[in-house]
């Protein structure tokens, strides 16, 4: 592992030099490093098929330097970067047009939850594996009867002494059919009030009795699944001292909520940068008919204004988190703003590209499919209505029944 300076100016030089050799040429010159174009993401995991040898090389080189999870502590596979150094890293990535070497639910969601709630044994067991891209996690929260009312989860975990016996169904589980493990909310106490009988459990997807069934989206793709648990045995310990439950038994709701703040900030951040490599400004100025359409022009102007301001806000809150102030319920505001903005951006792109983009496979790539996919942004990870509810109740403390 190369020693990277902690002095910002020197760190920038170090990173630049490291990038020059560690990031294959093929992985540079991309439009956006921070975008959410799902097809081009390096997800890692045992079943993942790399799009190219260069993609794999980039992930592995970055992992060996801790740069797949730069802000995580070094002992868990990270590089221990401060927020300031992380910003420099992202700037340098953008400068060479490289995408993030690895992105995953492990990095976005489970990692932060384990860092906050995991035991030393759990962190040692799972975090480095996530950092190296060797494991892919999926999120088993939602059920048919537990969407916005997430605490209503009914999937049961019965205590069988040395193991848990799991029965139930999850739904909308993104990439369940590609995942190696699932972090799931299960009911471990059916008599307790609904928030107090849930545990946050780590389950191997190859366990007997776990099955997945892909669900097709309106975009034509099938990124999510129904996930069934039929008498699935989960050992109480995944190895010596490695508890299958994260946090306290029956206190999984606390872990779940903490994880959601990270998930929401991440989904909100999906609005940043060019829309799948496309710029509203560039498209509108490429065609005098578009530029002369007063309604499109006004909408594009409003979109640019709002997206610049939302970007600043995302940065402001990340800076706050960087100096140790948790984002907490403000993550609901970031998610609400970011996702509603992203939907607007894609609506605008569809209007600008007119009938061209009304084809599945068009001169604008898979824009139609991406546009349809953005409609889920304000649903997944908690709906916009739920975000506004949280702001009203928890941030503003407005009275409620």
């Amino acid at each position: 592992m190369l020693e990277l300076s902690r002095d910002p100016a020197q760190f920038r030089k170090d990173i630049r030099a490291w990038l020059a050799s560690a990031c294959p040429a093929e992985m540079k010159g991309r439009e956006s490093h921070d975008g959410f174009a799902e097809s081009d993401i390096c997800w890692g995991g045992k079943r993942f098929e790399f799009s190219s040898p260069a993609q794999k090389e980039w992930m592995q080189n970055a992992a060996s330097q801790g740069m797949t999870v730069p802000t995580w502590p070094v002992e868990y596979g990270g590089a221990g970067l401060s927020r300031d150094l992380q910003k420099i890293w992202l700037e340098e990535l953008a400068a060479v047009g490289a995408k993030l070497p690895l992105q995953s639910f492990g990095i976005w969601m489970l990692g932060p939850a384990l860092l906050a709630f995991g035991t030393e044994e759990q962190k040692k067991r799972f975090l480095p594996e996530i950092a190296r891209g060797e494991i892919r996690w999926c999120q088993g929260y939602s059920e048919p009867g537990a969407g916005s009312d997430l605490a209503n989860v009914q999937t049961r975990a019965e205590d069988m002494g040395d193991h848990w016996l799991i029965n139930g169904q999850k739904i909308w589980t993104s990439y369940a059919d590609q995942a190696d493990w699932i972090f799931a909310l299960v009911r471990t106490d059916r008599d307790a009030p609904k928030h107090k009988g849930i545990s946050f459990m780590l389950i191997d997807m190859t366990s007997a009795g776990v099955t997945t069934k892909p669900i097709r989206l309106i975009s034509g793709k099938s990124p999510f699944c129904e996930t069934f648990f039929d008498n699935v045995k989960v050992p109480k310990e995944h190895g010596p001292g490695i508890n299958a439950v994260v946090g306290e038994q029956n206190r999984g709701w606390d872990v779940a909520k903490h994880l959601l703040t990270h998930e929401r900030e991440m989904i909100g951040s999906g609005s940043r940068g060019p829309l799948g490599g496309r710029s509203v400004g560039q498209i509108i100025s490429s065609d005098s008919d578009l530029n002369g359409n007063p309604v499109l022009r006004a909408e594009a102007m409003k979109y640019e204004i709002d997206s610049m301001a939302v970007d600043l806000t995302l940065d402001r809150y990340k800076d706050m988190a960087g100096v140790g102030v948790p984002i907490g319920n403000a993550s609901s505001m970031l998610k609400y703003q970011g996702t509603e903005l992203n939907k607007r951006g894609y609506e605008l792109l569809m209007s600008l590209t007119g009938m061209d983009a009304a084809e599945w496979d068009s001169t604008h790539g898979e824009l139609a499919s991406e546009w349809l996919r953005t409609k889920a942004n304000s649903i997944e990870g908690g709906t916009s209505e739920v975000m506004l509810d949280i702001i009203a109740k928890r941030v503003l403390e407005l009275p409620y029944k």
Partner: protein
Amino acid sequence: MESLLLNEDETMLRDAARGFLDASAPVTAFRKVRDEGTGFDRGLWAEMAQMGWAGVLVPENQGGADMGHRAAGILAEEMGKTLVASPFISSAVIAATTLRAAASDRLSGIADGSTIYALAIDEGAKFNPAGVAMEAIQSGNAFKLSGKKAFVAEGRNANRVLVLARTAGAAGEAEGLTLFDLDADRAGLTRDAIAAIDGRDYARMNFDNVDATGDDVVGEVGGGLAALQQGLNAGQAAVAAELGGVSAGAFGMTAQYLKDRKQFGVLIGTFQALQHRAAHLWAEIEVTASAIANAGRMLDTHPNDAAVAVSLAKARATKTAKLAVSEGVQMHGGIGMTDEFDMGFFMKRARVGAEWFGDYGYHAAIVAAARGF
């Protein structure tokens, strides 16, 4: 001003259409068309022709039912509610209106459903008739047409095509355009199917020295836009009406879901945040319905003065349908995002309808100009 209320005949037409479509062409029928990739169901179209729908704007002496534009709007709206895929707007509305104004003798084929027309205007991503660049080079009474047309509705299944080409001037000029009425199998005309998001029939057309004569010209040489004017207005009004139906269909599903889905131990329709949005959507749909009805009435009573009414309807219907399908998906949560559920179909149809024959800004500009700014 004419009353916007439905008269007795129109009420009967609407009820009959609704009864027929609910039974014979619910959204599941469209799903089948989408899955099979046929563009539309010929059997269904034949039945609709038999009921007089294909001839709704064709005079009785040419086999039509001659019910007028308001009636055509009623049919389009009912078809929008269940997402019926058919050549109704291209053939029964636009071609019928255009050819009737030109006293063409091809109307009986439209009325009996055997002739399916496509309208080929646009060459780019946005609706812009004056932007036509396709050439029709004239020598004496003969023309040779060369160029490309993008995203032609009914382009695959049509057996005739109305095509706008340039006999003079340059792209961007409203003058110098001529409308031709051609057999879709004419030598030199090739068509490539498009896989469109709304699952209907579209094609790209390529004209490579296609021969035409003066007999194929609709209206005057150089007067293509004038020849199309009434047909286009009728088509825009029908698309608006269809979008009204799309809005109502999406809204109906959503309102029902608010009464069925429970979270937090209660029906989600009890949440005031959703109640108010559903109420707002309904209020929007009501306002748009007036604009749609008015466009039909104006086309029937003042066809040469109807353009603003039509643009008003198309602009409103575009905006309302966008709201209805966005709210539709959002208020359904995860299930609204699935292909197995119908809401996505409404969303994709609303997107294409928003662009077809002019988007919100195109029509808003026409209204603004008429209002003196």
